[in-house]
């Protein structure tokens, strides 16, 4: 009882802590926000006794005040600098048009969330808060509901053909106490194709939701680099609904961050679709990285892949909670899930809960999870060939991460991520 009360009290405090928008919201947005607020109130804030938060303590995520996070100077160039992209910059969660490119260059329908919310009727009403709400069952995701209820920042994007350039969100962090909330809505109409890139620490504390409605035969690519500003905290949710023969690919690289919880909630609603969710995480010390994935197969002949690799050292913690739910009629499902951790020293932790819940018989689902140290035999082999031990270690670590990086379809993006991970290895050498 005490726990339930604590959850409700924390929820009320959070609702008070985040201001309502300074503009007047239109009918659809007002309703969507009210629904989400009711959901959040009924669920309460996450608590460390919640089964879904067993491995990650949400205390600092539900504190009404964001804990301080120092801002670091940008040392190396921003990720994706060599990619021809439309860059949209947010500073501490607020869109900054001066630093951004002209959004229309992407060849898609795009407008800030705040503008879409002021309209009384908007196409975004069919997605905003809708995918999030459907992802609230069977597991509660209160912080996503809070985001839907409170976010005023973000973009709504509608794509009808192939976007001419990737849309890149660049989240800058300048205020040590900033508490940012961003909500993007993306709708890919039949046959559309879009790549979204994301990078940057965003704020001292960052709560982000992206809802993606992938239409029939549409393709969505997502590459994200979360890094820098070690003291930052982030909780992100990716909600996707996949139509017939559509494709969804998401890759996340996480380096640094005392707390990162990335949830991906994907639902197959059309037959013959494909989804991949992959991540490579590397962290040191008080690094805590949580990947929580929930894939629901509710259509025939769909394929899902989850590939998660974590390299942890000096007491870092890696968490993986992955679930494949196959509904009774989702025959011919192919579900694959692998979660692996490489612990570079005695103090690091890997906590995993790879789950399968299957109600259809003609399926092939498998999951694997392994955890261990670097293979001494492989190290010995490399050092016996004259490679210094440190280099040999780095080679093996990169080889370990390669399986996840290989899930990035675009070669240039894959290289960008690869070089960033290489640099991380080098920085830590001293």
């Amino acid at each position, binding site marked *: 009882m005490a726990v339930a009360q604590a959850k409700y009290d924390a929820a009320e405090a959070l609702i008070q802590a985040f201001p309502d928008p300074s503009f007047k919201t239109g009918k659809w947005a007002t309703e969507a926000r009210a629904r989400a607020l009711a959901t959040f109130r009924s669920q309460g804030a996450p608590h460390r006794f919640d089964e879904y938060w067993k491995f990650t303590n949400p205390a600092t995520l539900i504190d009404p005040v964001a804990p301080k996070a120092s801002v670091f100077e940008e040392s190396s160039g921003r990720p994706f600098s060599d990619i021809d992209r439309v860059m949209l910059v947010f500073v501490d969660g607020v869109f900054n048009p001066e630093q951004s490119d002209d959004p229309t260059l992407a060849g898609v329908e795009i407008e800030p969330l705040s503008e879409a919310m002021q309209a009384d009727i908007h196409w975004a009403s069919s997605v905003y808060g809708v995918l999030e709400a459907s992802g609230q069952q069977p597991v509660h995701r209160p912080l996503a509901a809070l985001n839907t209820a409170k976010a005023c920042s973000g973009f709504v994007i509608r794509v009808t053909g192939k976007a001419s350039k990737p849309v890149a969100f660049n989240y800058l962090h300048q205020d040590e106490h900033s508490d940012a909330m961003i909500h993007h809505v993306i709708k890919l109409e039949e046959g559309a194709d879009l790549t979204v890139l994301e990078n940057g620490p965003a704020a001292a504390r960052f709560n982000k939701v992206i809802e993606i409605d992938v239409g029939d035969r549409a393709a969505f690519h997502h590459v994200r680099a979360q890094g820098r500003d070690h003291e930052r905290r982030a909780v992100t949710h990716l909600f996707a609904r996949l139509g017939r023969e559509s494709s969804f690919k998401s890759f996340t690289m996480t380096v640094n961050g005392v707390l990162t919880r990335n949830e991906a909630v994907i639902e197959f609603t059309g037959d013959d679709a494909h989804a991949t969710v992959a991540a490579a995480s590397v962290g040191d010390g008080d690094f805590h990285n949580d990947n929580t994935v929930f894939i629901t197969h509710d259509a025939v002949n769909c394929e899902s892949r989850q590939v998660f690799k974590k390299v942890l050292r000096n007491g870092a913690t890696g968490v993986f909670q992955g679930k494949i739910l196959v509904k009774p009629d989702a025959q011919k499902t192919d579900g694959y899930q692998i979660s692996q951790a490489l612990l570079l020293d005695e103090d690091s932790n890997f906590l995993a*809960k790879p789950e*399968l819940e299957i109600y259809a018989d003609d*399926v092939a689902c*498998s999951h694997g999870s392994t955890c261990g140290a670097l293979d001494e035999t492989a190290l010995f082999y490399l050092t016996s060939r004259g490679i210094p031990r440190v280099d040999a270690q780095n080679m093996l670590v990169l080889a370990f991460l390669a399986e996840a990086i290989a899930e990035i379809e675009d070669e240039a993006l894959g290289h960008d991520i690869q070089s960033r991970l290489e640099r991380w290895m080098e920085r830590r050498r001293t």
Partner: protein
Amino acid sequence: MNVVEDVQVKEGVDQETVDAVKSVGGKYKYGFETDIEMEYAPKGLNEDIVRLISGKNGEPEWMTDWRMQAYTRWTKMQEPTWAMVNYPTIDFQDQYYYAQPKSMAENRPKSLDEVDPKLLETYKKLGIPLKEQMILAGVEGAEDAPAEGRKVAVDAVFDSVSVGTTFQEELKKAGVIFCSISEAIREHPELVKKYLGTVVPPSDNFYATLNTAVFSDGSFVYVPPGVRCPMELSTYFRINAENTGQFERTLIIADKGSYVSYLEGCTAPQRDKAQLHAAVVELIAEEDAEIKYSTVQNWYPGDENGNGGIYNFVTKRADCRGDRSKVMWTQVETGSAITWKYPSCILRGNDSQGEFYSIAIANNMQQADTGTKMIHLGKNTKSRIVSKGISAGKAQNTYRGLVRMHPKAKNSRNYTQCDSLLIGDTCGAHTVPYIEVRNNSSRVEHEATTSKVDDDQLFYCRQRGMDEEEAVALVVNGFCKEVLQALPMEFAMEAQALVAISLEGSVG
């Protein structure tokens, strides 16, 4: 199997094979009831009932106090709801907590010869003769077996009491104590006091606490240092009385360098109303000791509409206390309407080993949520988990497991494999493993697959003249092979046959 009714004996097939097939065929064959006068404690649960059970067993005060503390705690606890099983709310006041055959109450028999023949007949019917005789690999008519046949000592528990224990004298010569737990509390209080509740503490969980308060009987085994128990030990649990819960408690202690293999079997009559069974099993393996614990659980599973059956809420845990100790759990779970059971190993001693082999079969409306926990605390500890879940009909089968590597459990290893097989599209198979690794010299590997019975394999069998059910049984037996092989000989045959029976009617 439907081949049983009119078997056309083909040339070259001997009568023995036909009989063997007949004996495993048909419906749940242990569903009969023994018509015997019973003595019940009043219905419901309160302090008086706890005292009454303690009194019936002639327990010393410390034991009664222990039970009372557990009872007080239990009244404040809440039933766990996290398992993937659904059942109507249990009214804990609407059942009997103690039932014993009147003949056992009035004049406690001093030896097996004095036991009510009706009881002996029941066990004979179940294929468990309570005579001190050779029992050969589960084959009936073992009376004629050669003298070097294997011996199995049996403790027979009927509802709330132990009816008798065989081969006690011979075991005594080896120094092995094998008796009912109520007898152990009276005769060996020092051992019971030292070990009881040290693996599953009274506060452990809702059902374990309930068991601590009301357990009536069960088995007690103590194998002294350096002794290899000369025969297999077994307990056969039988629920007979209606509306009665069975709460047994088993405590097995393998002292330094000893070895014991223990078998457990369970059956119950066919009834429309569900019955509760909440057992606690504690195993303690000291230095260099080894315990092999095998279960064939065949409680009445309820009918195809989900009426009746046993609710099996069991806490089983082994403490590998000493260095180089080893515990092996093997279970074949085919019965029970609801199974909630996680035989676990605490690998405390350095170099200790835990193994878990399980086949869980759920058919019709059965629901099974079972698995294991391997808690690695000592250095160089090893564990291996092989779990095979089979779902048919409208059943739900869940593997739930935990592998935890403590920071101090350096150089430890775990290998987990859990495979699920679905027969038909109205059942479910689920896997919920928890993996927690807190040091890097340990290696944890977990693999799980879910699939259906392979069409090519079925086709191959059909082509060779098998009917569909036979073919499925054969493929399923192959799927379970790794676990079946881990069973002692006595059980392997029975288990193999059970796999076929439990899936009966699930094809087509």
